[in-house]
């Protein structure tokens, strides 16, 4: 049971990460295609605020404050009573609301598979394709050193 709970949490967090990284336009498009329910009671927000980003001295040392970033958050309750949350960088309020609804739907065992396959999976594959392309473009700029032999031995 503990193990199952930890796995559920990790999967829920992964779904939230995917939603946070995706563009609002992509989420809206997939939402409409999948005809997911957008009806929910807003418990908080959507509202925009700041988080202070922290780094570490030398990369791995003591934490220090680097600067702020805009974040928009929303908390909703579905008619079924399930509560969902979203925090995402930027100021897209519609995205925050839909992502919070997606989080609530995800927690409903009867809807989880639908949210995963119709919304999260396509978003995730788009993100990883973009990431892979960027990695391959960066890899093309990798320096291959070669040694020049000078003179005769």
């Amino acid at each position, binding site marked *: 049971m503990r193990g199952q709970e930890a796995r559920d*949490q990790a999967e*829920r*967090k992964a779904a*939230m*990460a995917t939603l*946070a*990284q995706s563009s609002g336009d992509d989420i809206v498009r997939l939402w409409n295609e999948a005809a997911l329910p957008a009806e929910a009671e807003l418990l908080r927000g959507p*509202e*925009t*605020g*700041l*988080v*202070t*980003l*922290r*780094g*570490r*001295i*030398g*990369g*791995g*040392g*003591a*934490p*220090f*404050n*680097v*600067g*702020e*970033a*805009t*974040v928009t*958050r929303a*908390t909703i309750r579905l008619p079924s009573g399930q509560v969902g*949350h979203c*925090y*995402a*960088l*930027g*100021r897209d309020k519609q995205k925050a609301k839909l992502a919070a609804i997606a989080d609530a739907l995800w927690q409903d065992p009867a809807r989880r598979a639908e949210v995963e396959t119709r919304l999260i999976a396509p978003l995730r594959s788009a993100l990883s394709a973009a*990431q892979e*392309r*960027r*990695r*391959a*473009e*960066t*890899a*093309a*700029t*990798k*320096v291959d*050193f070669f040694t020049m032999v000078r003179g005769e031995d």
Partner: protein
Amino acid sequence: MYVAVKGGEAAIANAHSLLADRRRGDRSVPALRLDQIVEQLALGVDRVMSEGSLYDRELAALAIVQARGDMIEAIFLVRAYRTTLPRFGYTRPIDTGAMQVERRVSATYKDLPGGQLLGPTFDYTHRLLDPELAAGADVAEPLQRESEAQAMPRVSAILAREGLIEPDGEMPQDHVPGDITREPLEFPMARDIRLQALSRGDEGFLLALGYSTQRGYARNHPFVGEIRIGEVELELDVPELPFAVPLGTVRVTECQMVNQFKGSAKAPPQFTRGYGLVFGQSERKAMAMALCDRALRATELGEDVVAAAQDEEFVISHSDNVQATGFVEHLKLPHYVDFQAELDLVRRMRAEYEARENPLKAEEKREAAE
């Protein structure tokens, strides 16, 4: 007695509408869209985010347009906007070792794990103006290369194995990171607070100070151990969730400067370090920050404080370009009453001076006046 003078409302209103007109410029030229600025003036956007100390591309682009491209004015606008928003919390510290790297170079190790990745750099370009760009020529897609995902440890970890480099900067166990947005600056200052101030500091000011250390003012023999640019994930602890909530990714630039150090009463000979971490792709700024960070550690490392770049109060008090421009630019606002008082004072001093220098003439003058 205090006399207030009012006036100029119509002049101010008209000046602002003239500003709006000049900002728009020739109406036959298409207006800039924010996405054009975000995409095509990306490094300018990054500078405004870094010195405005607010990670938000669209807002930075809006600030650049509104400020007609005046970067310090744009930074000022972003800083002002920040103060209108509530703060949700402090993120977990980012892990630059897990960065999705877009550029990574080291000047100290040729064959470091993960390799040297040049990325989208100006380095090795010929700095010749490109007429094709002016003509709006199409740009080819970049090449791609198949490669296995490779771990890219920070270069400091490699040097650490030999024990010849100091560790990442630690603070005492119970130290809470200081926050210059909440508490006024106090000197002497802990390194974490200095780094926060440097990260939002003016690029030009830090660049000049970093340059001064290279030219011999607080010489500290720097090498770029590593520069890496790329995206890192952000996470925030919130009470309503049992795990840190993922917020998305931000692009940052990190510079690990490695400095030869001959040792002092406080520390043995070894490599010491300066650290730079800046929003966006801001390599020059991250390098300058790392040079200044190292120079400002003079007292900690038992070095003599002999140069401006080592003087914490001097550097940190003057690194913020919003404060600097505020104080310099306020000089152009009306000081009529101040100046009247000064004028009166100078007249009296002059009269006293003349009376001393030439008593007879002053006497005649006074009589004439009477």
